[in-house]
């Protein structure tokens, strides 16, 4: 009997508590009409401030709430793929264009329609965010690497070829004529890619429309010539390329004036406070134009968003405006994807240099197969620089890579 009383009391108390908890929550929407809409945006630390600015204006106009969740940029892709299907993901995330293949095959991104506004963005940015004919993101910045030179040692004139650059570097009388990051023993195909393309050996073959196919393009005589060149300049050769150089050592050597030339991206500029830097396109080592990878960053829309209309409205009508794009640029200066803005900021010679390099570059492949390339590619380059036989190592890498892609 008493047990029943106790049970009843427990139920009554829970009900009271529940009612206490839920009633204020139920009242809120009635008080402020039209504020139920909420969009969640994943961002990294650099972009948070700028998005906040655009979000405030959006909140004022529509009465919606914009919640920003800050994450590490490197974690965004996998978290997005893992969480969108469970319904826990955001409505919008910041991301890089080369994630597209993975995002599309995972079915987690929605297309977006920029309408006539698309023409206001750099063509390479729109192309990069397009996958199989569909635009999947609002692009906002470009990034690429370029040749950085110490103007005090070698002036600001761009060397036309690799040999010119080495000659001028040697003439400067520094410890090394040139230094490039190989990410230590891991190898760094990304930084080396401009030099590789100057031999005519792209990572994947592009079709007529410029889209990447899954056919590996690094093999054959051109690829072997590049491998040969790596070996000639590796540890057993001239030693200009060395696996002892990682990101920090590279920047230290350049900043201390021990090397007048390096190949780096805009993100490393802040590591060179002691050097007057000039930015130029990467010189050709193999005769053809050196085309580095161009990365495009932008905003992706979740395919499982509960507030798709609201999220699209925010992206297309608020984040794509000149003012919002300018705020993003000011929060984290990268080459803008919006042409007007790019022209505006090109008065800065450093930005102009990277912009010029980007215009000669190629978008980094966004097909999912690219994810399999890095390990093999980087390792083979590191081995060849360390003195492994160039041609057999390179061809073995191509064989292994093709096997991995087929499997």
């Amino acid at each position, binding site marked *: 009997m008493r047990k029943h009383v106790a049970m009843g009391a427990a139920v009554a108390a829970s009900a009271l508590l529940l009612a206490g908890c839920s009633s204020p929550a139920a009242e809120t929407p009635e008080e402020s009409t039209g*504020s139920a*809409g909420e969009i969640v945006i994943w961002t990294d630390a650099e972009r948070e401030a700028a998005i906040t600015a655009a979000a405030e204006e959006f909140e004022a106009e529509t009465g919606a709430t914009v919640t920003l969740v800050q994450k590490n940029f490197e974690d965004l892709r996998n978290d997005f793929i893992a969480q969108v299907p469970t319904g826990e993901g955001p409505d919008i995330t910041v991301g890089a264009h*080369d994630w597209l293949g993975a995002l599309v095959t995972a079915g*987690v991104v929605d297309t977006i329609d920029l309408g006539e506004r698309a023409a206001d963005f750099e063509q390479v940015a729109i192309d990069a965010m397009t996958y199989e004919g569909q635009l999947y993101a609002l692009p906002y910045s470009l990034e690429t690497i370029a040749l950085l030179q110490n103007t005090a040692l070698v002036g600001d004139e761009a060397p036309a070829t690799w040999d010119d650059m080495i000659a001028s570097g040697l003439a400067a009388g520094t410890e090394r004529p040139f230094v490039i990051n190989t990410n230590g*023993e891991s190898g760094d195909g990304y930084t080396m890619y401009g030099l590789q393309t100057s031999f005519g050996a792209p990572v994947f073959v592009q079709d007529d429309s410029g889209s990447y196919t899954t056919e590996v393009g690094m093999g054959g005589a051109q690829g072997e010539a590049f491998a040969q060149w790596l070996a000639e300049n590796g540890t057993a050769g001239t030693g200009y390329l060395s696996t*002892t150089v990682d990101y920090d050592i590279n920047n230290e050597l350049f900043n201390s004036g021990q090397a007048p030339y390096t190949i780096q991206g805009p993100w490393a500029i802040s590591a060179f406070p002691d050097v007057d830097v000039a930015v130029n396109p990467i010189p050709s080592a193999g005769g053809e134009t050196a085309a580095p990878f161009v990365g495009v960053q932008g905003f992706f829309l979740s*395919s499982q968003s509960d507030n798709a*209309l609201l999220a699209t409205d925010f992206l297309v009508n608020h984040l794509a405006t000149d003012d919002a794009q300018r705020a993003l640029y000011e929060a984290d200066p990268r080459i803008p994807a919006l042409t007007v803005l790019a022209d505006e900021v090109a008065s800065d010679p450093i930005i102009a240099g990277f912009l010029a390099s980007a215009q000669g570059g190629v978008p980094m492949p966004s097909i999912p197969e690219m994810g399999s390339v890095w390990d*093999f590619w980087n390792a083979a380059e590191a*081995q060849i620089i360390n003195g492994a036989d160039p041609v057999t190592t390179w061809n073995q890498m191509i064989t292994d890579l093709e096997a991995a892609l087929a499997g």
Partner: protein
Amino acid sequence: MTVQLDAPRTTAPIARRPLEPRRRGFGWGFIVKLALLALVNAVGITVILAAWRTEAWVILIASIVLLVIVDAVYLAKRALPLKYLLPGLSFLLIFQIFTLGYTGYVAFTNYGSGHAGSMEQAVEAALIQGEQRVEGAATYPLAIVQRGDELGFAIVDDGGVRVGSELEPLSEAGGASLDDDRPVDVPGWEVLPRAAVLSDPELQERVVNLRVAVSDDPEDGSIRTRDGTSGSIYSSTLSWDEQAMTISDSETGLVYAADDRGNFVAQDGSRLAAGWYVPVGFDNFVRAFTDTALAAPLFEVTLWTFAFAILTVLSSFGLGLLFAIIYNDPRVRARKLLRTLFILPYAFPAFMSALLWRGMLNSEFGVINDLFFFGADINWLGDPFLAKFAVLWVNLWLSFPYWFLVCTGALQALPGETLEAATIDGAGPWRRFRSIILPLLLVSTAPLAIASFAFNFNNFTIIYMLTGGGPAFPSSSSGLGSTDILISAIYQISGVAGGTADYGLASALSIIVFIVIGVISALAFRQTRKLEEYQ
């Protein structure tokens, strides 16, 4: 726990009640208990409702079961021991058993990139990817209109307003008025204010999914809106047939059927980008052992994992013990200071030390070659053998202080009279060490050695930070390297770093590692019981 609990179990006659002060049922203790239970119930019901809303059935059922058990245990009189065990058991269930169970579940699926969601989501993604804006189509200012329960679009085209819904294609709406290029009044329809649409997720979903045909001919495409303020003409060639579970492409004539591997595949072998995850049985386990690209490097990695874990424990235990014995000798001066210095590497975060050593071992710029090898060009991290040696060396440096600490403590706890008796019996230092000190020491340290083995078996930090698994095997299509241990290999194979992930395979490998460590630990602990018999 409370007054009520302490009450005798007899069903006493009501008449005796006033005589027994302890039987006042609703004392303070009961009220506190009631409040706490109410709180637990409130939280539980909130979780259940949230799970119901997001359709997370496993969580829903688990929370209902847990909540019922909690109420039953704390309100019933009989389950006294459970009242104390239940909180611990719930945490065990949530944090250990669930994680294990989930890893086990993933190991039997093909969850990974390209197979990340459910079939329903894959269909949705395919339809999204197949629907394209008609080339050259204009963008029309648009308003969302409603007639009863029917939603429609009103667009402004050449100054006139056209209106339509899912059921009827666009037609001229006479007498409509515009404000700022947007329809504000459409006869026969109610124009929904923008704020009302944007604040209602359900309505938003209906609007996003609404397609209004441009004309009677479906080839002309249909109007859809992406942001609720403008619309354009889209057309899709893909259509989903739920009965047949196929997606057909009207342009190419291909019919993509769902296969049992979680893909939509057409007759000619082409398949749609997005797939879903399906159970694949033991495929992942079989692959780990039979895939030629994987099996050979994984075998090498496994051997090195054992070598790494065993050598690390032996070397650091040996060095720690040696120093412990030396610095335990009363003849050594400033013992306290020296002991403190020895413990320093242990106090340093391991990943920092690994990064530091990575720099010091650099063949050109590192201090190791400069100071100790006369500037020789020894490629510590680039040579397969030297890299293994470097990993062992750095791990020795990191972990011997731990053993120094443990052994010092154990040595000081050794019975002095036994050692004295041995000395009197004429045993030399080596004999005393071998026959008395070491066996007694092992009784207390062997379980720690097993724990240390298990830890190093999975010591991801040092491998990842020091060598990154490199140098890579000269030829393999796995991307593994000579210093990779199983856990770093699993990380590599899971593909989290590269972008093409295979969580199913990675989970299967984790389970294998879990079993290996479990079996070794069980066997080893059985062995240590023999040591205790020595006492």
